[in-house]
């Protein structure tokens, strides 16, 4: 027996060496981070709607609304125990779902991340025969711009909205009509802009008369954003951050979400909200079935419940105040006005073309970092 064999035998006898361990640990962790993208989907077809369902959604009020207006009626209808958990952002959630280490049966998801989730096989196609309410959604959610367009559907929509001009109506007396209002030197140091690169590009594109789903002149956008910078107090990150900046009077005008503006108004800040003539980017909160789903049939029943017109009405009027995805949701005129749920707004809404964004986001982010530097 050669010396080398002896050594290797001893190693076998002694159990895994440190190097083996490191290799395994690194392999597991690395696999979890990137390799998971290629794992085949675990698909279980079950017919019965029962058992346990692990649902994950955005935290805070959103989670409360999901619990009260979706989970509660679902549990009342089916013998399913729902466990609701929260996540911080769609980016975080995408990383988690792509890693595929934890079971998640149903997840909420921002529209801009749906495309990447599909491309990396992190979510399963929906079996529409199990989701009869799917067809009650607006056409834009049945054939969404934010999916890959492979003839299958991977997401349903819950609520949607736009990001338009929010302004303090005490400080800014004339109602702004154009995104150019953000450039007005009168409001120097009172302007905020959403600081993510895609958000910056969207507003920059609208300001330069371009379609943010087919940008012709990125340099013009960069110039415009650089021209806007001296007016800016801050690039805002989270909704709660900008809410606070409006409430304390530090920011007077910014791109913001309708629901947040309504909330500010209710809490006493004099606010206006206007979709400018150039239009406003729209967003959707989607619901998806991650590939780590272990109760697919119940997951689909849950999604069907989330699309139920009655569930949607309660969700948007009592919970999260945005427009429902189901066009058959019965709303009063006042509610439509408040939620931005008029059919005309649906029809003019422009959603992000996710495939286009995915191929350009790198360039956009570099540009955005140049503007911020």
């Amino acid at each position, binding site marked *: 027996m050669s010396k080398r064999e002896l050594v290797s035998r001893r190693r076998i006898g002694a159990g895994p060496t440190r190097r083996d361990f*490191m290799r395994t*640990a*690194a392999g597991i*962790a*690395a696999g979890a*981070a*990137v*390799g998971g*993208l290629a794992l085949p989907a675990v698909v279980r077809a079950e017919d019965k709607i029962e058992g346990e369902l692990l649902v994950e959604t955005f935290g805070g009020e959103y989670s409360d609304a999901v619990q009260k207006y979706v989970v509660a009626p679902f549990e009342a209808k089916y013998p399913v125990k729902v466990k609701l958990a929260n996540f911080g*952002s769609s*980016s*975080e959630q*995408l990383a988690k779902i792509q890693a595929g280490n934890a079971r998640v049966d149903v997840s909420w998801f921002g529209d801009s991340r749906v*495309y*990447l989730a599909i*491309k*990396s096989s992190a979510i399963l196609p929906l079996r529409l025969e199990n989701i009869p309410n799917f067809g009650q959604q607006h056409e834009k959610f049945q054939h969404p711009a934010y999916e890959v367009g492979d003839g299958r559907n991977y997401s349903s929509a819950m609520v949607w909205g736009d990001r338009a001009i929010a302004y303090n109506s005490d400080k800014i007396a004339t109602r702004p009509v154009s995104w150019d209002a953000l450039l007005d030197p009168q409001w120097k*140091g009172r302007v905020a802009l959403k600081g*993510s*690169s*895609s958000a910056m590009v969207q507003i920059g594109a609208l300001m330069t008369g371009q379609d943010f789903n087919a940008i012709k002149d990125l340099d013009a956008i960069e110039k415009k954003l650089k021209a806007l*910078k001296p007016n*800016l*107090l*801050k*690039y805002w*990150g989270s909704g709660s951050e900008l809410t606070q900046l409006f409430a*304390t*009077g*530090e920011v007077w005008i910014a791109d913001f979400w309708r629901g947040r503006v309504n909330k500010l108004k209710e809490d006493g800040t004099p606010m206006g909200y206007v979709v400018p003539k150039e239009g406003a980017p729209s967003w959707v909160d989607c619901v998806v079935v991650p590939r780590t789903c272990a109760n697919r049939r119940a997951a689909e029943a849950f999604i069907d419940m989330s699309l139920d017109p009655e569930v949607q009405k309660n969700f948007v009027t009592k919970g999260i105040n945005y427009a429902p995805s189901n066009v058959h949701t019965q709303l009063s005129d006042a509610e439509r006005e408040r939620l931005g749920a008029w059919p005309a707004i649906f029809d003019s809404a422009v959603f992000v073309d996710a495939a286009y*964004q*995915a*191929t350009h*986001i*790198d360039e*956009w*982010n*570099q540009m*955005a*970092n*140049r503007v*911020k*530097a």
Partner: protein
Amino acid sequence: MSADGTAAATVARRERLKLAAHIGPGTLWLLVFFVVPAFIVLRTSFYSFVDGQIVPQFTLENYLRVFREPLYAEVFVKSLAYGLIVVAIALPVGYPVAHFIARKARRNREILFLALIIPFWTSIVVRTYAWKILLGNSGLVNYLLQSAGITDEPIRFLFSLPAVLIGLVHVFLPYMILPIYASLEKQEAELEQAAQDLGANRFRTFVRITFPLSLPGVATGCMLVFIMTVSSYLTPDILGGPSQAMISNVIQSEYFETYNWPFGGALSVTFLVFSLVFFAIYSRLIKLDGGAAH
């Protein structure tokens, strides 16, 4: 082999076991939560990024881009400059505090020491937000200025470079004070007495004896504050305006906005290598460990 030899071998083995027991848990912890993730970052930094997807295909493009685009060098230099400024403020602010606790505060030393440690019990997020409340338009500072009739309108402190620097100095100051305190505390009191016996006044004693002997602590404090400042993310994010993004903020945008983990990884690795080289030169020049005990 004598009985002595066997005994020596037993002792040696026991020593080795003891050593393993001491450093084992820490090593394992670092291995799993630092070395492995760092390795993943390193590996990913050589991957390609195609159509929004990470493709495990070897490329050097990410590193080339770090050096090709002037943007990243600019942000890097800006971060280094913030680091130097924060050190330049924290040292003169922190040194007297450390000196006071080590030399003067005989009875209250424990209380003062506790006061230094207490901030660590509060999250850095909370401490940074506290500055938002203090410095805001309707914050305490503006309230006092207006009540005293010094200004009519609130002065804008927040979302500016000064706000970021104030926040950074505040958050990292204890890391300056503690090592200086440690090296002052270790000095033998007789040295200062001897200097004074030989005719040196207090100023001269400080300049010739106390300060030079505390230099290892000063060097360690400066290094800690510098490194932590340069890599800070939260403070520029919360207290900064539109122009205060530092290297960590740029790296974050690569990871969470574009999902370009390969390029984010290349930026992180480059930044880490620069920091290590800087640290190596610094510790060679200053002899961080050598002098610390004496």
